[in-house]
């Protein structure tokens, strides 16, 4: 029996032998720019082919961080899409330099390439009845909510964004959110207004004053729980983007499960596949 050789998608230009649909692509993307946003976060902008730019807010990519002298990450690292632009052929990630992988990634320079797999996962859904959403972002959760804010803007939603960070220097993208027409409120641990109590007060106020009718959040288990409470009291729905340790990133390994409440009992769902965006109230 003669072998039918495999075509490695994206890395060769040969056509597929069978026409089944492929939505996730592995590509080497060249770095257009790579800058520090503050002392902890970097923004990396890639020149990306059309194939991977069919993105939606809330989706992520799985990045192959390089091996360097000092850092030998093995797994890929999941990163939310911070922005994507088909016209410019650009894809950007905003990330916190933390452990081995992100530290290795931080050493990449303009002109280097980064191997990326994506776009992956379920995007945010802006339901028709959600006209006045509140976005609550803590730390890096902001990267995840940025494209959602753009989408809300383009759908004409009246948008409120609360950005929470440890200190004012670590607040990011507030200008970007304003640019999307959002009312932006910042709270920080340093200023003492980022705790659950004061935030609850603030949000209850916003519900009254601005008619908030949906919550979107990312980046903090504590704040997610708070929004669940407020949401259930006020009958406000919403979505949360979760983070969980991943291996494969595309649904094969079941590393990234998280428990969810469902009508027929609790279930474990894969953050990489059924998520990373989930119904706010279902997340446990």
């Amino acid at each position, binding site marked *: 029996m003669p072998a039918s050789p495999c075509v490695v998608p994206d890395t060769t230009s040969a056509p597929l032998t069978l026409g089944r649909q492929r939505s996730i692509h592995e590509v080497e993307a060249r770095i257009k720019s790579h800058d520090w946003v503050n002392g902890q976060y970097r923004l990396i902008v890639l020149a990306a082919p059309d194939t991977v730019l069919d993105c939606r807010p809330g989706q992520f990519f799985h990045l192959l961080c390089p091996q360097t002298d000092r850092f030998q990450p093995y797994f890929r690292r999941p990163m939310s899409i911070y922005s994507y632009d088909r016209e410019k052929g650009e894809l950007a990630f905003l990330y916190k330099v933390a452990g081995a992988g992100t530290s290795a990634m931080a050493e990449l320079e303009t002109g280097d390439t980064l191997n990326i797999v994506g776009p992956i996962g379920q995007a945010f859904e802006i339901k028709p009845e959600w006209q006045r959403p509140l976005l609550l972002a803590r730390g890096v959760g902001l990267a995840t909510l940025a494209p959602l804010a753009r989408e809300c803007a383009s759908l004409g939603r009246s948008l409120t964004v609360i950005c929470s960070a440890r200190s004012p220097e670590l607040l990011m993208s507030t200008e970007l959110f304003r640019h999307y027409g959002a009312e932006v409120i910042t709270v920080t641990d340093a200023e003492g207004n980022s705790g659950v109590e004061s935030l609850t007060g603030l949000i209850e106020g916003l519900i009254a004053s601005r008619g908030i009718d949906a919550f979107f959040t990312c980046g903090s288990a504590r704040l997610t729980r708070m929004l669940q409470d407020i949401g259930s009291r006020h009958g406000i729905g919403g979505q949360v983007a979760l983070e969980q*340790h991943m291996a494969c990133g595309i649904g094969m390994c079941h*590393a990234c499960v998280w428990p969810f409440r469902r009508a027929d009992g609790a279930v474990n769902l894969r953050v990489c596949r059924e998520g990373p965006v989930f119904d706010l109230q279902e997340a446990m």
Partner: protein
Amino acid sequence: MADLSTRVGALTLKNPIMPASGTFSEELADVFDLDCLGAHVTKTITRERRSGNPVPRVCELNGAMLNSIGIPSKGAGWFVKNTIPFYADYDAPLVISISASTADDFARFAEEVSVPGVAAIEVNISCPNIEDHGKAFAMRPGSTEDVIRKIRSATDVPIWAKLSPNTGEVVEVAQASETAGADALVTANTMLAMAIDSRSGEIRLGNVMGGLSGPALKPITLRMTYQCAKAVAIPVIGCGGISTIDDVIEYLMAGARAVQVGTATFISPNTMPRLVGELDATLAARGLASVEALIGTARLSGETTTLAEYT
């Protein structure tokens, strides 16, 4: 183009590259055409629904990973209704992996999943995560022979026995599998291991211990493959740490008739199609007409110096 096909017992695979159980699923069809693989191997399932182990379920090491996924399972019914039909669209033979906690349950379950579309049943008698910290059927020749024999009498579908590196009796377990009627061996599953965060003292898996896989495992499972291929007449399928074409070739040279790729797919989802292409190119570069020409060719160097009798 070289002949990449290989026979594993009654099955002919169009090439020797297939996924390892638990590191592959329907979702990979989102990345490449699954029909370029020699076979499809599904994640181990159990008859009943199960949730698997607590998170964190994985951690990365230098050139290796640990997992304690366990065997989350949607159950036999769901699997037969949803998973098996998905693979019916493909030409590549479907190998399903099953597990159970007693030999009788194993046999009953094997019978239940011996349905059209299943080309072979891989019996995961070696999963180190479930039950008593890594003890499994595949630890002992006696328990292996018992479970394979019972499965053998319950199904006509080819049986692949997936062995464990956690035993000191690999050869005996391999021979017991053969005696009991297994059609092929897969060498091997993950090795029981552990990791601790040196800063916090936190154990890095929710299940405390887990299975080591990836490149660091290769020297161990390559050794098992060589031992088993020498010890039994049934085909051996190599598995453990394969990520490069050199790895594939070493396993074939050690006597494997096919190989399974696991963790490497997590690092690059296109690893398997890439290896198929590279295998073809390597055979061509070496002037070899077929994969067959590589199988079992490992040998001692002629230049081994004979030493003096005493030191």
